[in-house]
């Protein structure tokens, strides 16, 4: 038996024993944090067990609390999790974005301080990049950080901070070199949200209530040791973190659980339910059927592409290809929801009330939410700029 096969069996046994039955079906995912909320006690147990094993971050080195798995082993783990329909133990910007950036740019001391807590979901991290005047042109940001003894004093405003009202900590881009050319005066710093100098205000999205906020810093403080990647060198960290963010958002394009093509996509099931089949067992709307099949085919092509890129970049570091994934994945995901709405007819345009099922309203609101996919984490236009410049080498 190969090592990988043995690993698969061990893993399966362990999951069988440790994954609570409640976690083996779709549902909401825990976000952890100081004031962690769990919709079911099993969610907490699942997070604790997986966190203990480092399997919330399977490929991170075990010295920092990660699972220490190879890429191949991680693939096996994910397959096993999928096959038992297991829910993610933890959703976290710490895992998806901050952690990978820390692994690359932080000092040993910083890694030991922050990574293990991310693995266990002890803090809820949020991202403080965008500002009212700095969205796509992120490097023009103006939130200031000034050194005072062994702290930085921070003043300014961030916007679009996802979950800032719930988060414990924020990774933030701040201007530390006001005299420097714009990219060279930025630092990357970790700030505790639980202090008087930090306040948040919610933003309501077109889809209704939302986890997005404006975040204000009024003489907020961060210890100097929490500056990552060096003074005025934050742009490098920032850019890499954005690549991780894009890779994460790309996966939205694959629908839930990333499964496409092989099993019937949710879109097909949904359209069968609302449109029905004709006497030849074809969806009873030829034009929509063709659009759905086209979408289905593209899902599969996209899934294969993400897989191929994964195989090609052996080191697993995201590259400029992440812009392609982000661009295509988010446009593709938007289209999926357009088609769902179209399939549902008038059932797809309700807002609230008993005439519509919970699922119907959820889909309608998710449709509105997907409109942000091609904006958050860098707009589609910005991704196309990155591709044409960094991948295709087109001139400025």
């Amino acid at each position: 038996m190969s090592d990988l096969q043995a690993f698969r069996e061990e893993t399966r046994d362990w999951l069988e024993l440790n994954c609570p039955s409640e976690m083996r079906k779709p549902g909401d995912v825990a976000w952890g944090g100081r004031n962690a909320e769990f919709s079911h006690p099993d969610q907490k147990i699942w997070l604790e067990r997986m966190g203990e094993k480092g399997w919330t971050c399977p490929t991170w080195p075990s010295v920092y609390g990660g699972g220490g798995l190879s890429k191949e082993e991680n693939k096996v783990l994910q397959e096993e999790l999928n096959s038992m329909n297991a829910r993610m133990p933890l959703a976290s910007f710490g895992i998806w974005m901050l952690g990978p950036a820390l692994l690359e740019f932080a000092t040993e001391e910083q890694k030991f301080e922050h990574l293990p807590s991310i693995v266990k979901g002890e803090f809820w991290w949020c991202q403080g990049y965008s500002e009212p005047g700095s969205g796509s042109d992120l490097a023009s940001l103006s939130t200031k950080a000034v050194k005072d003894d062994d702290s930085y004093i921070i003043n300014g405003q961030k916007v679009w901070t996802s979950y800032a009202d719930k988060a414990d900590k924020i990774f933030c881009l701040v201007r530390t070199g006001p005299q420097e050319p714009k990219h060279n005066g930025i630092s990357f710093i970790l700030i505790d949200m639980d202090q008087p100098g930090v306040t948040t205000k919610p933003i309501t999205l077109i889809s209704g209530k939302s986890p997005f906020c404006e975040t204000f810093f009024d003489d907020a403080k961060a210890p100097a040791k929490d500056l990552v990647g060096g003074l005025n060198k934050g742009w490098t960290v920032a850019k890499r973190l954005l690549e991780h963010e894009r890779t994460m958002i790309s996966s939205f394009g694959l629908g839930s659980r990333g499964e496409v093509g092989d099993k019937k996509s949710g879109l097909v099931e949904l359209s069968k339910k609302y449109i029905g089949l004709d006497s030849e067992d074809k969806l009873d709307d030829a034009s929509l059927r063709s659009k759905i099949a086209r979408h289905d085919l593209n899902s599969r092509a996209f899934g294969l592409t993400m897989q191929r890129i994964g195989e090609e970049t052996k080191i697993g570091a995201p590259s400029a290809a992440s812009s392609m994934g982000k661009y295509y994945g988010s446009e593709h995901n938007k289209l999926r929801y357009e088609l769902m709405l179209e399939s549902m007819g008038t059932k797809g345009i309700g807002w609230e009330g008993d005439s519509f099922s919970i699922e119907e309203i959820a889909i309608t609101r998710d449709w509105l939410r997907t409109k942000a996919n091609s904006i958050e984490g860098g707009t589609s236009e910005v991704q196309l700029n990155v591709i044409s410049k960094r991948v295709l080498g087109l001139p400025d």
Partner: protein
Amino acid sequence: MALVLNEEQQSLRDIAKEFLQKNAPISHFREIRDTKDPLGYDKVLWKKMAELGWAGILVSEEYGGFNFGMMGMGGILEETGKTLTPSPLFATGLLGVSLIELAGDEKQKKQLLPKIVEGNLTTAFALEEGSRHAPCNIATKAKKEGNSFVLNGEKTFVLDGHSAEKIIVAARTNGGNDQKLGITLFCIDSGTPGMEITRLSMLDSRNVAEIKLKNVNISSDCLLGELDNGFSIIEEVLDRAQIGMSAEMLGNATQAFEITLNYLKERKQFGSLIGSFQALKHRAAIMYSELELTKSSVVGALNAVDEKSNDRTRFASLAKFKAGETLHLVSNESVQMHGGVGVTDEYDIGFFMKRSRVAQQIFGSADYHIDRYATLSEY
């Protein structure tokens, strides 16, 4: 499933690339077109390609072949797509070989395959009868008379039909039009009396023929595979053909894109390189994304054949759909981005658009495959 080439496949492709760029670049195709070459390809070149083993890539070792699989064949077809090299590779090396390997009996294989491998025999597959791909829409009849068959009917869009020595004909021996059962394959010498082969002049200047069969009398030795049960073989061969054609189309699109990208980096207007204009940049980036998706679809499909995946047919439709749409997009955009010179015959870029429209028709357009995919996926 591996979506990257292994070392052997990579080296096969590297050799193909070098060989074709040197011996059969786009100028070679232009010359064949301009001289109205009666054969439509260069025989000496084909011999050399056969020496490199290309004609026998899909042939089993026991018949002198190399058994390199579709991953090997796909890489080479992709390279011929970049150079637009006309050759019997697709019609003989892929279609003919597959039909004979899958349907032929021992005697036929022993007799035909080694000759193909050596580059001494070319074949064509006479399937289509209408103006759109409809594989079981076969009205051509083969009637059994004693120890022979008599064929009557008309075939169209037969790739390499006028230059091939053996024509493999799909005819109806039973059942009504549009039925899968009752279709039979025959392997016929192209000189057989009653066969009238006319070369068609197509947009892409490549070889396609129309074949009329009038009381073509052939011995039952010509039967390739089982009587009435040819369709399952045809289906399998069509999957391979669609995937192989997609690989070539991926090569077409990749090259057209490459040429255009270079043009964007050298042509100046308004005092700037046109590649600096965002209106063009974004479209280039979109084409790049579509090309990446196409590449994965094609490689996935090639692999599905070699790994005998039971999802092979859906993969074939995925590849042909994606290659069709992407080549359509890229060839149109390439001409547009070249401005006025793009519509001149002197520039090569127009060739890709012409080839694109023909390749899209071969064994099913993107729309055909969308429909097939949905049906296979049961919706």
